[in-house]
């Protein structure tokens, strides 16, 4: 991969990020609003309290002043203070990132791996019963809204069978440590992780299936067979690696959404991650929090797109030259 290719891609990403930073500021200020007044409506604040809160919320001064101080703060990774908790937004996001990365990370990996395997199986046995059942199952789950699937699983396994808790990340009465603590968290994570895994399987299956079908028409597979290789080896050594390209790109892009990808599912299972934080910030509305979350989400999407670009350039030489 040439240095020029990399530089161009990195610069492009930085420009996009700068645009997001500026756009973010104005996005939340298009409509005139007064969060201090609505949050403390009827509370008979004194003038000092009002002025103090307005300052705390970063709403004093003209919009230009606010913009300049916003740029300065953002450059030093200070995302302001949340209206709702009066804690630094960066801390709030940091606290919520762990549960989200655990939940969405695990289910992204699972759905990518399982989905790709199902896609391989479907393509290799195209137009058999196996193909039809895999394709229809994954299409069905993929087209199901994830919150609906989540509700179904919740009703079946948490309410009906009572196998799993209905929400949260730990049992507040357990105070478990060590292995028991991990077990407690795993139990809480099972249903949301299952929901996300099943909901996103289909994407990988469909792409892997069609990509592998394309590859299967290539001459080198005929050659591989002609050499007398076993079917499994033809598949695993010659067909799948070449067909994986679009899946790798999809994975990289989807990982960009790991942070933001689970708003609905986190809300359903009261999973205290970034998705739930987004939902609550929207209900607030908690502008600094939303602003910070959008910035983090955009940055992560931009970063992983860059990774996908570079990876693609590395894996497929044709991309570099065009």
């Amino acid at each position, binding site marked *: 991969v040439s240095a020029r290719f990399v530089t161009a891609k990195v610069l492009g990403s930085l420009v996009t990020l700068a645009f997001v930073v500026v756009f973010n500021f104005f996005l939340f200020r298009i409509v005139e609003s007064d969060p201090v007044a*609505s949050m403390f409506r009827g509370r008979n604040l004194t003038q000092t309290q009002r002025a103090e809160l307005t300052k705390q919320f970063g709403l004093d001064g003209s919009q230009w002043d606010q913009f300049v101080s916003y740029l300065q703060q953002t450059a030093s990774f200070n995302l302001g203070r949340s209206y709702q908790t009066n804690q630094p937004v960066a801390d709030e996001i940091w606290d919520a990132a762990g549960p989200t990365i655990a939940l969405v990370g695990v289910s992204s990996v699972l759905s990518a791996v399982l989905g790709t395997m199902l896609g391989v199986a479907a393509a290799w046995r195209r137009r058999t019963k196996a193909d039809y059942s895999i394709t229809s199952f994954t299409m069905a789950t993929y087209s199901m809204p994830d919150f609906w699937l989540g509700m179904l699983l919740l009703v079946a396994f948490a309410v009906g069978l*009572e196998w799993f808790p209905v929400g949260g990340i730990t049992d507040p009465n357990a105070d478990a440590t060590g292995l028991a603590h991990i077990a407690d968290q795993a139990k809480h994570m099972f249903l949301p992780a299952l929901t996300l895994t099943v909901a996103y399987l289909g994407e990988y299956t469909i792409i892997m299936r069609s990509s592998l079908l394309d590859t299967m028409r290539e001459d080198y597979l005929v050659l591989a067979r002609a050499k007398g290789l076993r079917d499994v080896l033809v598949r695993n050594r010659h067909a799948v690696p070449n067909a994986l390209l679009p899946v790798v790109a999809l994975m990289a892009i989807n990982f960009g959404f790991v942070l933001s990808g689970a708003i609905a599912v986190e809300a359903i299972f*009261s999973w205290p991650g970034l998705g739930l934080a987004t939902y609550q910030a929207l209900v607030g509305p908690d502008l600094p929090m939303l602003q910070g979350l959008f910035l983090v989400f955009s940055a992560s999407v931009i970063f992983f797109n860059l990774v996908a670009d570079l990876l693609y350039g590395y894996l497929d030489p044709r991309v570099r030259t065009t």
Partner: protein
Amino acid sequence: LVGAVLFVALLAGMTAVSAEGQKEPSTFDVGDTQDIDSMSPLIGVTVPAYEAWTIQYATLTDKAASDFHTIPGLAKSWTSSPDKRTWTYKLRPNMKWSDGKPLTSEDVAWTVNTAREEEWLNHSSVVGNLTATAPDPETVVIKSSVDDPKLPTMDAYILPKHIWEPLGAKGRAKYDGLDGVGSGPFTLEKFEKGQFARFKANPNYYGGRPAVDKVVLRFYNNPDAMVAALKTGELDAAEDVPGQAFKSLQGSSDIQTIAGYQGAMSELGINGGDGLKKPHPALLDKRVRVAIAHAIDKDAIVDRVLAGIGKPAHTLSTSPDPAWTPEIPEDQLYEFDLDKAKQILDDAGYKDTDGDGIREMPGGGQPLNFRYGVRTEGDAGAPTYELISGWLKEIGIATTRKVYDDSQLTVVIGKGDYDMYSWGWTPFVDPDPMLSYFTCDQIASDPEDPTNYYNDANYCDPEYDKLYAQQKVELDHEKRLEIVHEMLTRFQESAVYDVLYTYPDNQAYRKNRFTGWTRQPAETGPVLFSNSSPTYAKLKPVSASAASDDGGSSSAGIIVIVVLAIAAIGGGILLVRRRRTVYERE
């Protein structure tokens, strides 16, 4: 695949291990749909935060569960000077904070004075005009700079001086309040933001150690999941149950539902025209406002917007204590009658001259088309608008829907840039704040700062203001009640503020776990999340044998999971072996 199988197996295996932990019988689990924003009373504003402070911090005087009258709290008795501006409180002897340090009049005086000086968010409405001194450890003297009918009630959270003073003013303003030192029945043990706050019984509580060991406030973002947790027994009680679920729980044999009224109301507010901008000219005509009032079927709104869980109302609800709300004379009520509404508009000269179904101003010209602000918050805004705009259309009035979130609507109302909207209020126990919002000087008058005011009716009535000033210093309760009733009756008559209904806090609890549920106020109020939440200290666990009737299904679940896990592991091993043989044969 192996990884996936192992992951599932691991999860399943762990589930089997951890499901053994049975719930302690004397832990009281409450679910809520809102999170505690901060444990510090200087910062937090959400309803569960108040509940947490009410559990943890006792106040100088408490409020009776039955009707909010002032009863002893940290103070056992009090006396007043003849002018009722100086009150002397005697504290209970030998009180201690939950950490064992003595709780004295120093703590009280320090809290009152520091809160006043630093204008603490949740204290200043109580202590703004008060100064406290501590002549001896069991005596607090509180002086008010004005006549204050709220006294001797002192419902400000008293904080432990030994924790809060060393922080300094700046430190206090940012302190997270997680020390767990308090004087109430329970004190904070563990707080996981976005998940739960767990409290333990305070052995030094002046009312004696509570019978329940722990209280857990749990946060559910999904109200249906919360209701499910109540049904499965993960929760003992739930606050803020959605209307439909609440109705379905009403039939349940082991769950008690409570529609707890605390005075929350919703209204159709009309721009009365005394603010920064005038509304549509027709709305300045009281006859048009009266016609609108006649076109609103409050019973239908309660039925269809609140699933029947609410009560039609006529004037401001100024307190959770229903005694403050007057009986409006029958002939002054604007009953639902579309023909009467049309007749009033016809008589006043508002006729549809161009035949488009919408009336115009007398003599033709501007049609009666009103801008109606609809809130995005809550579930009631959109359906209320649909119903009201439908009835208005029937009497020849058009509406233009304007959708706002609260922080936008606040600005719109402040600027007077509206004709009507629906929103609501939840009152404090004392009616004064709610009454104060509708005085003339609460109408936005500074165009540079339009949100510094509360009068969202933009309506000014000098007679109302005169009565307001009278009730504010009237120290005789009966006389004050009479003045307030007169104010509210006048206010209703103006037809600028059509109060639609009052609505309850929907709560539910499991009957088989605890006794001691206490409604505040009696018969109509909620059992939890009330003004002083007396239930927590009174709860007693029902004997353990009666309570543990579930658990069978979960052990069946464990068995199934274990079987599944074994099958998955077995399958995984088989697959791996098969693959190996394939490669070996290569």
